[in-house]
């Protein structure tokens, strides 16, 4: 059990309506690791996380977490599984009617019978870890983007879950908070025996803290490996991504007609 992977994607296909997003994704993620998923904007990274959390179901293939196939679980079983997961949403998704403190305390109050004094200590510890203990009385509307993101991060680890999914935890952070948050994710994973999935664009920062990297493009896993393998990689796609080059196999543009067609230039020529 201990060495079987915590999460397995087997030939997962998924589409929103008729638009295919994932086409046969295979991945396997081991316990106790920090795994990064990288890929261009709109490549389906958030969708991968939503599949793991059972928010959406694959149209073919399966996603299993801790040996359970997520989309086959009953509601109660799914909720039991979710109790062991934490998720940092890409846009934070803080409860706007609750203070920072109450946001972090929310799951503790809903899921445990801990006395209020203990909840207070736990919440302040989580907030301290993200450097926002002093902000516990603020409302989400009073936070900056980066602060809100860190509060959401504290909330996602409130119950010390076995698996945490971070959807772009570094977005909007200054370099200092960025390395603090990176270090925090690494430390939590090591000390709590947690598994972390990190969706990120921040190649350099994440290569320093992760154990394994998957590259997603066009709905398939195009490359994967340890950070060292990735840095050395000669695969054009990976090379382009790691070194941030504009020219290469990763398209910057969402699929469209040709530029000249959209601007009407093509039409004029044919007249």
């Amino acid at each position, binding site marked *: 059990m201990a060495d079987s992977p915590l999460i397995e994607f087997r030939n997962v296909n998924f589409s929103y309506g008729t638009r295919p997003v994932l086409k046969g994704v295979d991945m396997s993620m081991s316990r106790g690791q920090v795994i990064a998923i990288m890929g261009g904007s709109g490549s389906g990274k958030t969708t991968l996380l939503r599949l793991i*959390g059972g*928010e959406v179901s694959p149209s073919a293939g399966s996603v299993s977490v801790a040996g359970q196939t997520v989309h086959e679980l009953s509601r109660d079983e799914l909720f039991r599984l979710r109790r062991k997961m934490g998720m940092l949403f890409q*846009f934070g998704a803080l*409860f706007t009617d609750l203070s920072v403190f109450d946001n972090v305390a929310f799951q503790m109050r809903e899921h445990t019978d801990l006395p209020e004094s203990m909840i207070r200590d736990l919440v302040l510890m989580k907030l301290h870890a993200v450097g926002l203990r002093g902000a516990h009385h603020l409302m989400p509307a009073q936070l900056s983007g980066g602060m809100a993101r860190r509060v959401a991060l504290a909330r996602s680890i409130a119950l010390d879950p076995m698996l945490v999914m971070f959807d772009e935890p570094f977005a909007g952070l200054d370099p200092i908070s960025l390395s603090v948050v990176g270090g925090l994710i690494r430390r939590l994973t090591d000390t709590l025996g947690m598994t972390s999935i990190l969706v990120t664009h921040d190649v350099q920062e994440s290569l320093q803290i992760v154990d394994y990297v998957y590259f997603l493009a066009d709905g398939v896993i195009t490359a994967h490996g340890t950070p060292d393998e990735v840095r050395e990689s000669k695969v054009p796609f990976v090379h382009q991504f790691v070194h941030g080059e504009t020219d290469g196999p990763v398209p910057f543009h969402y699929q469209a007609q040709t530029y000249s067609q959209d601007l009407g230039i093509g039409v004029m020529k044919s007249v």
Partner: protein
Amino acid sequence: MVKQLKVFIESVGHRVVDSIWRLGYATRFILLVLLKSVPGFLRFRLITREIYFAGVLSLIIILVSGLFVGMVLGLQGYETLQKFGSESAVGTLVALSLVRELGPVIAALLFASRAGSAMTAEIGLMKATEQLAAMGMMAIDPIARIIAPRFWGGVFSMPLLAAMFSVTGIFGGYLVTVVFIGVDEGSFWSQMQSAVDFRYDIVNGVIKSGFFGVVVTAIAVFEGFDAPPTAEGVSRATTRTVVTSALAILGLDFVLTAFMFRGVS
């Protein structure tokens, strides 16, 4: 021509089918809310909070409107009744109009635009900002935690608000006719007391406002939950709450009245 007619009939058909589908969807949603109401009742604090937001915060507008409506009823009633020399019956007129009709109906219309729209907007925004999804990912059912308490908060508030509307209305009528115009105070109250029947007038009025409470809050929470997760989607849903509620209140009022006051003098 024939083609245009065909297109027209098709579009009408589509609309009808869509509306019926949506009605069924909404009904199923509300049944789900009812099924998931138990946790809210076990933690009644959640519902009390919503009674505060839907009920207590609507009090000002309800009380002020009630007062004015009662004052107008008093004036108009006095005008007409004094032509027949029966101005002392003005108390009866004010009380019956309010308790049977105006109390439940106007209070419900105000409630829909004050509390119902707020409920839709709040739930719609929570959905648009992924707060509901986040809650679901925390293994907390947003229907049980967010929707059901709001639904019951509204359902409990409505009859109370309607009753307060009627009471301030009667006070407004008293103020205008007895205090300002000088109608005899004794006959104002005693005629009202003998004419207003507890079972037929007051209880029926409360039943009406109970129905209105269920309908308005059901529409409000459904529209919020169903709103497309965009600014435009939420604003449209809010408008729909107010419009649909108003139509539902007035239509339902006719049906309920037809059943309640048949042949009772």
